[in-house]
């Protein structure tokens, strides 16, 4: 079982990791300085020097798309990992032995799940003031409850398996029990969820900056670039091809890998918020 899971998932996770590194290393491939403004070169059509043209301030769209990847993906990765850690901690609490811990954890989960994900993210990130860090905070605050509910049922199920009961009866300390017996049972599910949530977070990061709550100019970010390009959509549609395509490919890659992994583990489709 253990060897099987390692070999099956290794390929998918490696692919996802390679993709992540590629995008995070995107800035190294950029042909031009993404911040360099040149008002003489405003809104140029694609050319050899600017393969995707230039934006309204004369900056290279391709270079900005490549830089923007590092920003969007970095934020999405950070938000996914932090909300997963926080949420799974809470999920563990909600399956814990103490009745009060359990009730409080369930209450927190139920309350937080009542807020639509994007509304909570917009409000928290927006009220704290638009910035990368606040985007991360907003997405973590809005996203952890999903992880808590998701992992809670898994931890409860794992805790009900006979060998965990036996281990508990033998008096193995709770921390060790969690690390040795509970977590390994939850890991395949968590790996699938990480990939799929990563896809959702990339969408959310760009969505927030599209609405004006994300990283602020001149930081290149896919959502912001789309928003800026939308004004010129009628005459210069190519401004939006770069960032639009980048987001879609990125989300599709994580979704496809996540779905492939899900089918390998024969898990049910996940419902996102």
């Amino acid at each position, binding site marked *: 079982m253990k060897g099987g899971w390692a070999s099956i998932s290794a390929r998918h996770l490696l692919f996802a990791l390679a993709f992540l590194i590629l995008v995070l290393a995107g800035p190294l491939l950029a042909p031009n300085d993404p911040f360099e403004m040149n008002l003489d070169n405003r809104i140029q059509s694609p050319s050899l020097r600017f393969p995707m043209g230039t934006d309204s301030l004369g900056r290279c769209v391709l270079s900005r798309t490549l830089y923007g990847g590092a920003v969007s993906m970095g934020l999405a990765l950070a938000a996914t990992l932090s909300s997963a850690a926080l949420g799974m901690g809470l999920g563990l609490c909600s399956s814990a032995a103490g009745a009060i811990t359990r009730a409080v954890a369930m209450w927190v989960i139920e309350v937080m799940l009542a807020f*639509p994900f994007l509304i909570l993210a917009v409000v928290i990130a927006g009220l704290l003031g638009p910035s990368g860090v606040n985007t991360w905070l907003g997405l973590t605050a809005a996203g952890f409850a999903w992880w808590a509910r998701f992992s809670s049922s898994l931890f409860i199920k794992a805790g009900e398996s006979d060998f965990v009961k036996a281990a508990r009866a033998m008096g193995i300390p709770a921390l060790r029990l969690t690390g040795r017996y509970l977590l390994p049972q939850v890991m395949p599910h968590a790996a699938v969820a990480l990939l799929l949530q990563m896809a959702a977070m990339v*969408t959310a990061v760009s969505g927030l900056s599209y609405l004006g709550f994300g990283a602020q100019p001149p930081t290149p970010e896919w959502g912001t670039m789309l928003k800026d390009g939308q004004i010129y*959509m009628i005459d210069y549609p190519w401004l939006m091809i770069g960032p639009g395509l980048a*987001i879609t490919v990125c989300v599709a890659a994580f979704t496809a890998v996540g779905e492939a992994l899900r089918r390998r583990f024969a898990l049910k489709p996940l419902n996102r918020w």
Partner: protein
Amino acid sequence: MTITLSLPAGLGFVVRRLFRLAAVLSGIALIAFSLLDLAPGDPAELVLLARTESPTPEKIQAVRKDLGLDAPFFSRFTTWAVSALKGDLGRSFRTGDAVAREISARLPVTLTLAALTMSFVMVIATVTGLVSGLMHGGALDRGIRAWAVLSISVPDFVLGIILIFLFSLKIELFPVVGLSGLHSYALPVFTLGLSIAAVHGQVFRAGVMEVLNTDYVRFAYAKGLGPWAVIRRHVAKNALLPVVILWGMSLGHLLGGAVIVENVFSLPGVGTLLVESVLQRDIPMVQGIVLFTALSFVIVNRLVDAIMRFFVPSLISRSGEER
């Protein structure tokens, strides 16, 4: 769902559920209210800035007194919550109008969008999920699944922009932005519904495949029923049960997703109001919208849950066995 499904043991069951509901509702109110203290800076200053007045110390003092900001957090919260119970969500920092009135003025657009999108999702998800599940492994199923991954992957705002570009600017079939009759909802509904329909379709597909492999479907075939009768009466109905719960859950997705879609298409709904209010730090308005959406989400889901229990009593027994 985190709601524990337990056997209805009469009054005790109802009381426990009501207590739980009350606990959740007060939690929601608490979070919505504390948004005021989340925003950096003095709220009184925000009020003055929203009214484009210069924040002098005297004015700030006056506003603080006026809004009762000097009281401790908990007493401010109870005052706010009690008036919210009466339907009074306070007044906008910006316009001074009642928050509840502004929300209800914007509500029809958001509700129309949500209702139309939900109908779109139900139709598309049911058809694709059923076809995909019945023909699983076939070419059509693979095609539908590729379409699903693509639909889930294209973010709402990207899809919306592409649709505006193609259908409003290039062939001028629909209005670019804003509202002019029901047909201006076509593109927003498609944009918002496509990804939800794809997710629900996949869940339905999994359900269909699971049900196809049950004894009661084999038994129905053994009875000599034709494939259509089996699919209609036994497969579709049972596979839809988990999807119906999703329909309730996706209300949150609809309201949240509406924030982006309403902005892309400049629809004057609650979503655009929320973004405007956040940008201008109109905190009572933000609190009101957040409270309103969360409450509707919880109430709609309780209703779906109750309706399901009423129509499908076997659901209770099944979950009873699980526990």
